[in-house]
């Protein structure tokens, strides 16, 4: 673009008068702002600090913390061992061993015999949660995860299910029923005769 282009907008900085050029008014304004912060924090109102061990921070609902394996209303693990989460996982931290579902579980062919997540390898990206077709794996708001050994940080199925038991009241499952957007409403299609779906 050339310098004489008419669409070029020239911005001239505002000219300061003598008083403003001493910068004293701006300094006083700055002092007023910091002073306000100091006073309000000193009186105990302005400070946003969370006194951690005594006061627990509540993360936002979409916080990605420790995983849990969800249970359905009959107390069974929801996982159908489809391996989609393990495939989606960029850190390869999920290890699933699937098995044929018992006869008494007519709604699925397989279930997970073992489900292990290495919490130290996990990067908490939440892609397993997105990949899961049956909402079996979810990330909770647990953020202060500690362990005394590397082995203790490898969570197996029992542990992941116990995380669900601990957090199900504070954080209900994000999708209890399959969300309406997922099941295709076929009535419209059949009416117009678009053929079988």
């Amino acid at each position, binding site marked *: 673009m050339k310098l004489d282009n008419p669409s070029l907008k020239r911005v001239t900085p505002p000219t300061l008068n003598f008083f403003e050029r001493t910068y004293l008014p701006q300094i006083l304004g700055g002092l007023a702002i910091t002073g306000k912060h100091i006073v309000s924090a000193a009186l105990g109102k302005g*400070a946003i600090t969370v006194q951690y061990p005594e006061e627990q921070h509540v993360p936002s609902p979409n916080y990605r913390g420790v995983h849990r394996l969800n249970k359905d209303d009959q107390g069974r693990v929801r996982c159908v061992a489809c391996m989609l989460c393990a495939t989606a996982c960029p850190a390869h931290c999920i290890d699933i061993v699937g098995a044929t579902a018992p006869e008494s579980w007519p709604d699925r062919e397989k279930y997970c015999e073992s489900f292990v997540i290495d919490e130290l390898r996990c990067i908490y990206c939440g892609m397993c949660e997105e990949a899961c077709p049956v909402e079996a794996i979810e990330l909770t708001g647990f953020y202060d995860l500690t362990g005394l050994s590397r082995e203790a940080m490898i969570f197996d199925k029992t542990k992941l299910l116990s995380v669900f038991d601990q957090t199900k009241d504070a954080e209900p499952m994000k999708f209890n029923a399959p969300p309406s957007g997922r099941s295709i409403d076929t009535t419209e299609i059949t009416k117009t005769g678009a053929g079988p779906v």
Partner: protein
Amino acid sequence: MWELVAILIKIGIVVGISQGAVAYLILVERKIAAWAQDRVGPNRCGPFALLQPLADGAKMLLKEDVIPRYVTKPLYILAPMIAIIAAMIGFAVVPFGPVGPGSPSLFDTTVEFQIAPNVDIGILYVLAIGSLGVYGVILAGWSSNNKYSFLGGLRSSAQIISYEIPLGMSILGMVLISGSLDLNTIINWQDNNVWGIVVQPVGFLIFLISAFAETNRLPFDLPESEQELVGGFHTEYSAMKFGMFFLGEYLHVITVSYLTVVLFLGGWDIPFVLDQTQVGWFIALVKVGVMLAKVSLMIVFIMWVRWTLPRFRYDTLMDLAWKSLIPLALVNLLATAGVVQLWRQSWN
């Protein structure tokens, strides 16, 4: 003989109190820093974190004192000592309360609230000692054999030499008006007339700005400037040697605050409430307290400014001193001298 003992006791009291005060000033600084950033600050160590300074001090003393192999050892060890001693001996002429006729007495000895009472050249002494402090910084930067430290030392020398000039000239206005270099005479003049800030507002401003530069406090902390110089002159120092630089800086802040109060804020004076004719132990202690309160407010103000203004760039720092403050101080000095001369002629 007894006078010597009295002076030694006074030195002990002043050194002890100022060292303790520095420890708590660091706590106050941390609290104010936290509040300015909407945090809570230290609150775990004892009630209101009052034990925090002790913990900090213990940490400083117990840390490993590393002396790198490549430093110039004698100067490296000398530098923090100079920093702390130069800051400390400035207290010798600072009046902490009323001095002169009417001072209270104890065991037939008059107690003057000043280590060296009635020094005629008090201000000159303070300025001279203040400039000595720069040796600590320069030697530290030089002997560390580290380019960052060296740059910090160089900046410090240029900065302090530049700001000494407006600092000295801003004080001269008050000296002309009160007709003395003795700090007590200046306080008494302010008690008889008005506070220095009223008659010398420009001088006060120049003094304040130069004082910030002299104490290496933000916005003039270029010798340190953590972000560019990894700590500047004290990069290579650890444990209590680092602590001594810290201590020196805060002692300097206290001295400068006392000077500001003595020169421009009336010392122990409160208009219409306290004056020189009131004598006795109680009044003397009240005056000491008033002065201490003023100094505390001044120190809090210095910390407040730290969290308001960002650091100057090096060339703007020099511009401010040589192109703005020195001409302004000169004009102020000339105008003051003229007015004082005219005033004296018309009255006598």
